[in-house]
């Protein structure tokens, strides 16, 4: 068994400690193990489903080298991805699917970014649509020197009314962890958090919620929805928690509010009484968003708000964010999608290896600038430990 493992890992050019439990590996290494396993059974066709979702740029390069090597060995590879650049980099032939049907297929030379998106969506997307800057108000949130040992340190920034602040960084830079610490899911070990000028330390999301915070988690299904329960109920959880007095829930009022929000957000479902699991992925995302909008939080932390969402729904989510901004609320948006950050954020903070390494106002932001900050310190490495 050991020899087999060593051999396949060598084949893809990776060397790992064979005794280490799989759960302790980096995500990239876990992927390698999975690929090695596929190789160990002498597969002829390899199916990769969003394999580079959590890779750093360097890891993507290494991964592509492996893929090209496998290609040369005669393996057939089906590579599913949302990352258009990657598809152009590594693909020979592209097949586009939408709503369960193939809309277009052909050699990669026949496509460019625009036509690819058109095949996915059926219309052109205007990449130059940007959010409008709003007049800024009081500071809603401020962190100073926030530190969680081994994960992030010395984080300081502020968030004002009417702002969308983007949080950029490579995977592993600690962005989601920072968000979780602010929101009370995890703790931070030192530093201060101020909500509207008052120092706070949230021990649970329940507390954070009561102080006007909200967080759209990265993992929508597992952390955002109760699949067996109705759409209406799911969207109402935060509202119920906030608007109940002494346990008494104003159901009529809440139902009205939540139904309005659900419609606003554009959730398409046959009935709000149906279980949320009957909805499509994109609509499920919207239900989670609806939940937080219904909570009327003042500060929303969005963790990868448009990941896994089709291009059409993406625009709708941006529109909701703009409205949120215009209402004088604040958004902290974690995103790995650089174009998204560049078009939606008023300000971009860049994190690397657990620290904030750069801040770019809208006018100065560009892909090169952001990546420059993100890569400079980390030099292609990922570990914080």
């Amino acid at each position, binding site marked *: 068994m050991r020899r087999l493992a060593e051999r396949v890992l060598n084949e893809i050019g990776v060397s790992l400690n064979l005794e280490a439990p799989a759960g302790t590996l980096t995500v990239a290494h876990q992927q390698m193990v999975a690929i090695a396993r596929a190789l160990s059974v002498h597969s002829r066709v390899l199916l990769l489903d969003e394999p580079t979702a959590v890779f750093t740029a360097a890891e993507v390069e290494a991964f592509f080298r492996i893929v090209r090597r496998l290609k040369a060995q005669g393996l057939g590879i089906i590579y599913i991805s949302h990352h258009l650049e990657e598809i152009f980099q590594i693909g020979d032939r592209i097949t586009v699917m939408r709503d369960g049907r193939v809309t277009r297929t052909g050699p990669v030379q026949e496509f460019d970014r625009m036509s690819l998106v058109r095949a996915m969506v059926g219309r052109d997307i205007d990449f130059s649509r940007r959010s409008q800057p709003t007049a800024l108000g009081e500071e809603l949130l401020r962190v100073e020197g926030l530190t969680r040992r081994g994960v992030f340190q010395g984080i300081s920034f502020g968030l004002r009314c009417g702002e969308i602040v983007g949080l950029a960084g490579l995977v592993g830079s600690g962005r989601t962890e920072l968000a979780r610490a602010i929101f009370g*899911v995890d703790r931070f070990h030192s530093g201060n958090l101020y909500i509207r000028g008052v120092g706070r330390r949230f021990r*649970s*999301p*329940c507390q*954070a*919620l*009561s102080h006007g915070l909200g*967080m759209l*988690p990265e993992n929508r299904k*597992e*952390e*955002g*929805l*109760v*699949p*067996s*329960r*109705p759409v209406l*109920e799911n969207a109402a*959880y*935060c509202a*119920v*928690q*906030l608007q*109940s007095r002494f*346990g*008494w*829930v104003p*159901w009529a009022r809440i139902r009205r509010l939540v139904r309005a929000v659900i419609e606003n957000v554009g959730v398409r479902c*046959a*009935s709000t*009484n*149906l*279980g949320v699991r009957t909805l499509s992925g994109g609509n499920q995302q919207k239900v989670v968003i609806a*939940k937080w909008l219904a*909570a009327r939080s003042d500060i929303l932390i969005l963790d990868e708000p448009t990941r896994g969402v089709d291009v059409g729904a993406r625009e709708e989510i941006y529109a909701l964010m703009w409205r949120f901004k215009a209402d004088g609320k604040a958004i902290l948006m974690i995103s790995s999608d650089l174009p998204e950050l560049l078009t939606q954020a008023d300000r971009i903070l860049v994190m690397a290896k657990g620290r904030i390494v750069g801040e770019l106002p809208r006018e100065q932001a560009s892909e090169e600038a952001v990546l420059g900050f993100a890569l400079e310190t980390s030099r292609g490495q990922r570990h914080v430990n």
Partner: protein
Amino acid sequence: MLEAVARRWWQQRTVDTQRTFTTFLAMLLLIALAAVLSRGVFIKPTNLLNLVFQNAILGVISFGQLLVILSAGIDLSVGSMLGLSTVLLMIFQFLGLPVALLLTVTIPAVFGAVNGYFVAQRRLPAFVVTLAMMLFVYSLAQVISGGAGIYSGLNGAPLSPVLVSFNRRGLLGVPLPAVVWLLVLAGMALFLRLRLGHFVFAVGGNERAAVFSGVPVTMVRFLAYLGASVLASVGGILAVARVGEGHPAAGQTYLLDSIAAVTIGGASLSGGEGTMIGTLLGVLILGTLNNILNLLNVSPMMQPAVKGVVILLAVYLNGRREQR
């Protein structure tokens, strides 16, 4: 045309409602069967009312179990709690009925709180915690009662006549078991509409999502276990009222039956799914089934086997509907 309307209506109901409806149909079927077999005796009002009275104890306990199961847990100690409460009621009679009743409910509630603490706060598996509690409480009841049944209070007086006659006369002519069961039903219905009660579904359905949505998960879980114990002791009170005796083993059969009733009623053991009405129907189905077996002259030894088959059937059907 009508079929299309009906189908649309059906599809717009939640899974919970669908299941409850199906369970209701199943019960109607069973009642029909019983009616046929008994040549109409079964559906006489007196007999139907009797069905309710006989199963009130199981009904009350099953609601407690439902609460816990909705929160994705289980309470194996409800049977022992019932036994303990019967013993407590007997020995505390001499303090007067109101005080005795109070103690009978609060002492098991303390143990329920211990369950809640370990499961909700310390996050130990509910199965094991309540298993340990079951052993503990049963043993405690034995120690208090000296291992045998108790027929009279500490001062030697027989069980307060008030309680026993209450059982028959009850409130305004409605016998005690029915009154209590109705009160419990109403209480649960109210609880599930309050904030913490409503959140039980979320906590059981997807705990992580509940936490991330700001739901006070620990408190909700804790209350579920507390509630289960309280309801178990209420069941114990009814048991004493019925037979005039307190015995540590009084609740033994109710544990598995309560789980069966909740399951037949459509609740899922993984939490987040289930209704009160469903559990109510589950209890009545079990009761009707018993009746039917008697009518068919099936030996009582076969009861566990029949229950087993019914449980399997119910789970299978519930599972099928889920997959659609």
